[in-house]
């Protein structure tokens, strides 16, 4: 097990280097740069822009900028934001709790919904049709549209919930924070649970058709025991992999949901930094995102390893 972990971590280092080079090239290939916003303001004269370009080190050749960034980055110096001049690490870290809160809650809610729906859909044809329709709707609804409709209904028309933000201005009490979480978490959880329940249904269906289930049924096991103790453990490894991979994508922020709900997480920081071409924040963000995907991949493998004894000789 430890050997697996060490090997995977070692493999990921060259991969991360390649990713960093690709990401650096891509964000610099996009038109515009950290100075673009200055161009629109007539008060900022061309001499100012030249002065700022030098002060920010943007006049250096790209290769030099990349290696300067890389060398500093591996030593833990993530630089300063081009937008507000604060340390990149501070800007990222202060956004992490909000994203964890939103993504964590959405994932839990989505799991709680997906598990029973997926299992039931695998064995009950009528429920399968119904949940299939709902799931397809959940997967297809564009997040930005669904989010805005929820705002209009629950905040606008009914006035039950705050439309966006994380809390009232004074930090809010527990009820206040929960009420701010409901709409964005619903949007995220809806999409996740819709997809997850279909994955689980598929995995369960494949399992219940296999001979060992028929054999177990012949031994007189109750349907309930059959499903939960025999079929589910066999279906779980595939499902867990999918769930963890989805979560790893969200670990770098639910970009659309966060912007629509003015949720102060890493996702909205990303949107903002992208618009300003804040290279320092974008690089750090994308590198952290890559590391998160790799880590959760590893966790997923280890989880499958633990859940499925057949994979242990790997």
């Amino acid at each position, binding site marked *: 097990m430890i050997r697996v972990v060490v090997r995977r971590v070692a493999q990921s280092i060259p991969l991360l280097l390649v990713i960093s080079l690709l990401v650096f090239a891509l964000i610099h290939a996009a038109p515009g*740069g950290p100075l673009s916003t200055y161009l629109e303001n007539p008060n900022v004269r061309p001499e100012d822009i030249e002065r700022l370009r030098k002060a920010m080190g943007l006049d250096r050749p790209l290769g030099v900028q990349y290696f300067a960034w890389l060398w500093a980055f591996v030593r833990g110096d993530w630089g300063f934001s081009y937008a507000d001049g604060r340390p990149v690490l501070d800007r990222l870290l202060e956004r992490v709790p909000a994203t964890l809160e939103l993504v964590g809650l959405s994932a839990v809610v989505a799991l709680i919904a997906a598990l029973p729906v997926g299992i039931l859909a695998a064995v009950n044809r009528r429920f399968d049709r119904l949940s299939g329709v709902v799931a397809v709707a959940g997967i297809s609804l564009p997040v930005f549209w669904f989010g805005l409709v929820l705002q209009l209904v629950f905040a606008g028309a009914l006035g039950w919930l705050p439309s966006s*933000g994380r809390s009232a201005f004074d930090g809010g009490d527990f*009820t206040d924070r929960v*009420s701010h979480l409901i709409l964005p978490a619903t949007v995220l959880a809806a999409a996740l649970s819709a997809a997850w329940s279909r994955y689980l249904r598929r995995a369960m269906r494949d399992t219940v058709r296999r001979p060992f289930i028929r054999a177990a049924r012949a031994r007189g096991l109750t349907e309930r025991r059959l499903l939960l103790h025999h079929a589910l453990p066999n279906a779980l490894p595939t499902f867990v992999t999918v769930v963890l991979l989805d979560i790893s994508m969200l670990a770098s922020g639910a970009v659309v949901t966060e912007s*629509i709900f003015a949720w102060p997480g890493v996702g909205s920081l990303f949107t903002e930094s992208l618009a300003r071409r804040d290279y320092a924040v974008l690089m750090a963000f994308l590198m952290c995102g890559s590391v998160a995907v790799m880590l959760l991949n590893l966790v997923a493998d280890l989880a499958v390893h633990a859940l499925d004894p057949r994979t242990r000789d790997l």
Partner: protein
Amino acid sequence: MKRVLIACALAATACGKTPPKVAASNEMLTIGYDREPDTMNRYATHILEDIESCVVEGLVTNDERMNIIPVLALEVPTTQNGGVTLRPDGGMDVVWKLRPGVRWHDGVSHTSADVKFTVDAINKGDWKPESVDGFDRISSVDTPDSLTAVIHYREVYAPYRMQFVRGTLPKHILAGKNIDAATDYNRKPLGTGPYRVVEWKTGEYILLEGVPNYWRGSEFPKIRRLLFKFLPNTTTRINQLKSGEVQMVALVPWDKVRELRSVPGIRLNQVVGNGYEHVTLNQRHFAPFAELSVRRAMAHAIDRELIVNTLLDSLVTVVNGPIQPLSSAYEKNVTVFAYDPARARALLDSAGWVMGTDGVRVKDGQRLSFTLITQSGFAIRENVSQALQKQLRDVGIDVKVRLIDGTSISSVWFKGDFDAMLHWWQQGADPEITLFFAADRMPPAGRNINYFRDDTLTAMLYASDRTADETARLVLLRQVQQRLARLVPELPLYNTAKVDAVPVRLQGFTGNPTNAGPFWNVYQWRLSAP
């Protein structure tokens, strides 16, 4: 998913007992703001200074009629009141008399030493102020007494009146510090204004609270706290306004105005903005734009009244040049190219542009066909560009529209890599336009992105910049506008209305046509009784 929805609906019902709506009151006004500031340092920020201006006051500001009015200065120096003198060596001295009795929020007096420190700090160049415009022409500052600062300019600099619109930096706090890294100041600046920063919660809001001993009198500010919530998504911001979670939104996008008209409790305050939407014609990239008859024909081919009355709901008015009606330099009597497609066709015919079989004119093998770029996601611009496309097509000019995202488009025009562009310039209260039209101000040296060269005009522009006497300068600028209108280097369309959504009960709110922003007089706002 159904269960999730049901569970959420149940939870929502439970939470419904504490409705989020809070009526606007003199206790607190909540503002939905489209972006989070980068820094609260007015000299370093590169977005609008609305929040900053509640805390840090300028020596002057401009009101809703674009009059430049003193704030921390006792009066605006002019040649008439003796505040401005021209030196024999070609330089200029400006004397700023400061208002006595003004204190920084920590109780230290605001003095001419702060003015001198500000100039020195900016000219020292060891940090990143956004613009050093004008400061780099200052050779030194004298402080004969604590309330007098004499600014020595190396040359005559006509826009001197707005030099300190961003206020001063507190010497006793920032002296000897690296200002870029002075996070304490940059997040919670020390000012003299009616409010101070209580809390800046990153990604969420900035809370301002009225100061107890504001220099205008302890009865100001009338509203105790201002809460600026950062809501970058336009629809979210409008939704919060409708649901009452925010009570004010500054700069409502034009395409949202109609749906807000019916929202109870909200008043839409509109002022004529000091900016103008126009079509830039890049002569360097598309040679036919260098022909005066082509430019004039295009001006005749566009029905600006129709565009304004339909697509823009008559929110704005048609204008004929870069200096806007509110400016003291505005010249009304200029050549106007009225909508007249027949005249447009005749002009093109006589210039040798022959109608081709595909309905597009040709001359010497060149088709009169170009690409118009504009910002994507700006609904009204997308519509206007289509209208322009249709109207120009009617006289035999082919236009392709290309939408480019907001960040990319500025680097595209700065490189001059486009034929024509639909966009606006938003200007400050000073009428200087040299940057946009002088022949030596093409990028990267300026913003003459029409790449238009007219030596007479260039000479007139520079003469106006070096005329310290206000009246004489305005005469020159009026002649500039007349010449510009005749030469049509670009196609002016309409001015930019600034619409702010405020509570019906908010008194004292006037809006502002420039980037001084609607908060310029926030100290006197108050909410009347419901």
